[in-house]
């Protein structure tokens, strides 16, 4: 099956992941919702979302939402029920005390994406509680932590904060100017973006930076956009490498390819080389895609490989909204999104 999308194998791959993950996936327990997102969004991009029991997944997602007793309290979504909460998709208030239970910014992002993809109109979303959490997660330097309980802060969570505000159509919880200053300060001398000021330019981080600027309507903030565009284009060595002088890895097809798409420069990508690289990483026996040839497939690289194929002009994958990394139809058919009002 050279250079052809093995669609059925991939559908089976994601379906079986949704049904059960092996023991070594224990290290992913805390971000299980992210795994669910990779699987469901992949099936959506393969136009096969209807094989799923959408209602039960929607209920599972809502069971992970935190509902503070206090209307000014913080909410959000958990990555999984690992803290011990009883399952209840219709909970509206936390009835039992779980002191270290907390929402995680990346889980809110994937939850909002998932609900949209599955056709839910956010009817059970506690928007105020999510925004209260976002507000508290922003740091004095403009970046964001993922949780209140002590954690690193970096560009990944800046992106989550932007995407959440966009999907909820409400930017009131974050200080946009501080966020923009932080993003600016992370641009490296070579044009790409690093995790923190002074850090090496990196594909995943560059996507998070650029998409945050795009979502908030501030692409003008980039110092020397031309340097950034060239940095992105030059990362294509067959597939895309994530940093200068490193090997190509399928996930950067989305992280860096997506940056170019957001800048209307997707046509500058060498589609045939990109597609060829991704297909070398296709696992025909199990379905899914790996990061590089010779590695086993995993959900993250499978998802971003599918996105990469769309970027490489493969029309067997549905059109993608590059701001959010999900299908265009999930964005268009779902609750209203918006950039900040000037």
């Amino acid at each position: 099956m050279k250079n052809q999308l093995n669609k059925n194998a991939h559908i089976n791959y994601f379906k079986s992941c949704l049904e059960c993950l092996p023991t070594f996936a224990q290290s992913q327990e805390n971000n299980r919702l992210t795994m669910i997102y990779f699987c469901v969004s992949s099936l959506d991009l393969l136009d096969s979302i209807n094989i799923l029991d959408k209602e039960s997944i929607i209920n599972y997602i809502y069971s992970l939402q935190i509902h503070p007793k206090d209307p000014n309290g913080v909410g959000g979504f958990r990555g999984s029920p690992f803290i011990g909460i009883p399952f209840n998709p219709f909970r509206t208030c936390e009835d039992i005390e779980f002191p270290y239970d907390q929402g995680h910014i990346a889980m809110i992002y994937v939850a909002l994406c998932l609900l949209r993809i599955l056709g839910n109109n956010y009817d059970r979303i506690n928007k105020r509680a999510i925004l209260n959490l976002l507000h508290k997660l922003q740091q004095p330097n403009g970046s964001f932590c993922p949780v209140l309980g002590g954690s690193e802060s970096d560009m990944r969570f800046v992106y989550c904060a932007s995407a959440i505000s966009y999907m909820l159509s409400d930017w009131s919880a974050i200080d946009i100017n501080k966020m923009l200053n932080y993003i600016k300060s992370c641009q490296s001398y070579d044009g790409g973006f690093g995790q923190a000021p002074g850090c090496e330019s990196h594909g995943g981080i560059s996507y998070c930076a650029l998409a945050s600027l795009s979502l908030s309507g501030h692409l003008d903030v980039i110092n020397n956009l031309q340097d950034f565009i060239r940095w992105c284009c030059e990362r294509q060595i067959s597939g895309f490498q994530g940093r200068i002088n490193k090997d190509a890895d399928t996930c950067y097809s989305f992280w860096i390819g997506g940056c170019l798409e957001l800048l209307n420069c997707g046509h500058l990508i060498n589609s045939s080389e990109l597609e060829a690289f991704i297909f070398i990483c296709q696992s025909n026996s199990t379905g899914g895609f790996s990061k590089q040839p010779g590695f086993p497939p995993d959900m993250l690289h499978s998802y971003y490989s599918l996105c990469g194929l769309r970027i490489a002009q493969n029309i067997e994958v549905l059109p993608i909204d590059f701001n959010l990394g999900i299908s265009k139809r999930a964005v268009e058919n779902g609750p209203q999104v918006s950039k900040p009002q000037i």
Partner: protein
Amino acid sequence: MEEYISFKDREEWKDITPISQDDGPQPICPINYSTKFSETMGYFRAILVKQEMSTRALDLTEEVIDLNPANYTVWYFRRLLLKSVKFTINDEFKFCEQLALEEPKNYQIWYHRRAIVELSQDCSRELDFTTKAIQNDNKNYHAWAHRQWVIETFNLWEKELDFLESLLTFDIRNNSAWNHRFFILSRNKAITNEIRSLEIEYTINKIKLCASNVSAWNYLKGLMNGSNIDNYPTVIEFCDWMVQNHPICAPANVFKVDILQQKILQLKGKGQIEQLRELVNEAERICNNLATNLAVKHAKYWYYRIDQFQKQLQ
């Protein structure tokens, strides 16, 4: 390796009723947990609800971390325990180091390391520690980021250039090392003209050793950011020399295009149409060569650059 004893057989845990996880009637992406994992987590959940600050709780966090070092809640709880329970800071540093070297890409471990450095205000181990991690993986992003944080927070700028030299001798293409050099250069104090000149000389010598090394060319470009290239004739001369004597060196030609772009910008609006046209033609010629011969994979990008140069003539 100690043999695992089930919690229900441990005398010191008899008073605790474990709390099981409730995944609901139709769990999504359920994980096939090992018995050890389910049991340990069950006791951990119970201790969290109790908010128990004790030595046994501290030991328990170690067991949970061993099973799942990405669990950010257990790390947070451990840090709270370190504030209320007796422990030896050196042991904590050793524990963290061992884990970081085993799981070098784990964000939580590296954050914990930073947290205990902040807590103890003791940075004495950090350069050696990050050196070890970087020796294991010369491009470990967390190790470099942590090293930069330590240097900036505790003013440890001195020995870095020697450290970098050994890394670049081993692999002149190590972009993390080049980035770190730029960090050392630019974050401590402003780049003076004298420093810039010395760095230009350094970089040119490195490029001569490996002409195709994009990291070194980017570094050279970075040095020129925000300054007028006419003040650095050595750079222009070197680039021209490279393009003449190493015509298939793509980065040299790319750099030449950048120089021409700068010169074109300087000439804009000054009415010297002929001179402008000459520069644009030269730039287009090089872009065309890149697109068709030297950087064929990026052909579309170089045709885009030609378009952009054309627009500058209008």
